[in-house]
């Protein structure tokens, strides 16, 4: 079968889709991911079934990014190139603080590339196994970078906190939309696997 043909129908979704993402997201340094040991669903390259970090000492981990009151935002967009299409993965998060540690974190983040695991509010329960719509991985091909970091001391919204905008680099965009992360066939196992990243 050709890889550039539509191969299935999309039918009405009788589950009601829920917008937004949770306040907890997880950042992983791009170079820390052991891509050789990660696994995908054999029928769907957008379904990541094992996300594993490399072996190193001290042990590599993911980092939690905790927002507040739906302060994290996500957007995916297709980008039309001359011959092919690619994808922009965007993630906006807010830091409600301004300590020297926060500033050091931001400064280091601006020079790094990272993957983001985000948790959607939408958990489609009508399809089996349920839980496949919950976790998504952004920046699988190249990692995301910080494209903007701003602090307005008089901001009415952030009250002097930081607004960080992460996304793809200007030239190299992702080859696919964000990957679904579903480990071990259940949402419980997926949560355990994410906990094992921390």
């Amino acid at each position, binding site marked *: 079968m050709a890889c550039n043909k539509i191969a299935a129908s999309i039918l009405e979704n009788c589950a009601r889709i829920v917008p937004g993402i949770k306040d907890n997201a997880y950042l992983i340094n791009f170079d820390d991911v052991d891509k050789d*040991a990660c696994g995908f669903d054999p029928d769907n390259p957008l379904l990541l079934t094992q996300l594993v970090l490399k072996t190193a000492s001290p042990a590599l981990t993911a980092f939690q990014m905790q927002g507040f009151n739906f302060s994290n935002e996500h957007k995916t967009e297709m980008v039309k190139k001359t011959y092919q299409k690619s994808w922009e993965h965007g993630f906006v998060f807010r830091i409600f603080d301004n300590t020297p540690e926060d500033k050091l974190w931001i400064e280091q983040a601006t020079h790094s590339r990272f993957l983001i695991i985000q948790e959607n509010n939408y958990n489609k329960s009508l399809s089996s196994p349920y839980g496949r719509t919950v976790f998504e991985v952004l920046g699988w091909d190249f990692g995301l970078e910080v494209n903007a970091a701003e602090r307005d001391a008089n901001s009415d919204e952030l009250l002097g906190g930081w607004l960080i905008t992460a996304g793809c680099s200007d030239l190299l965009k992702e080859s696919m939309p964000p990957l679904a992360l579903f480990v071990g066939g259940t949402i419980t*196992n997926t949560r*355990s696997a994410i906990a094992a990243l921390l």
Partner: protein
Amino acid sequence: MIQEVISFAREYINNPQARNPERKRKIKAAFKQLTGENLRGSCGTCYIEALIKIKRTMEKSQSRYQLKPGALLEAFGDVSKTCTNDSLTDELAEWHLKNNPGCIKWFSKVPSAKELAAEAKAEAKFKEAKEQAAEEKKADKKKR
């Protein structure tokens, strides 16, 4: 430093009066030594969370098998065999490696052939000594 921090961990967690700046400094240093990260001590439970992480990491580092961060092992139709590094035991690791040798790619630590051979040798010696002791005991009883 890490061992010292572990030695006062229980007291630090249970007794708020045991939480002095000196101990906080030591936890910070141990955390940095173990994880390479700077501990952000701005929240109320940061030091306790760090202590738990230090203890867990140290306990794990003494086990014979270790999974890579994020890896999950599972067996079709048997939920009791599902594990991540947090719930991995030597028995589970050996079961998975025996039944699915390909899963070795998700392990960050497995005993080498040399270590396994030494273990087998030590075990055989122990068994032999035990049998010998049992025989001697039997012989003693007969004599009496």
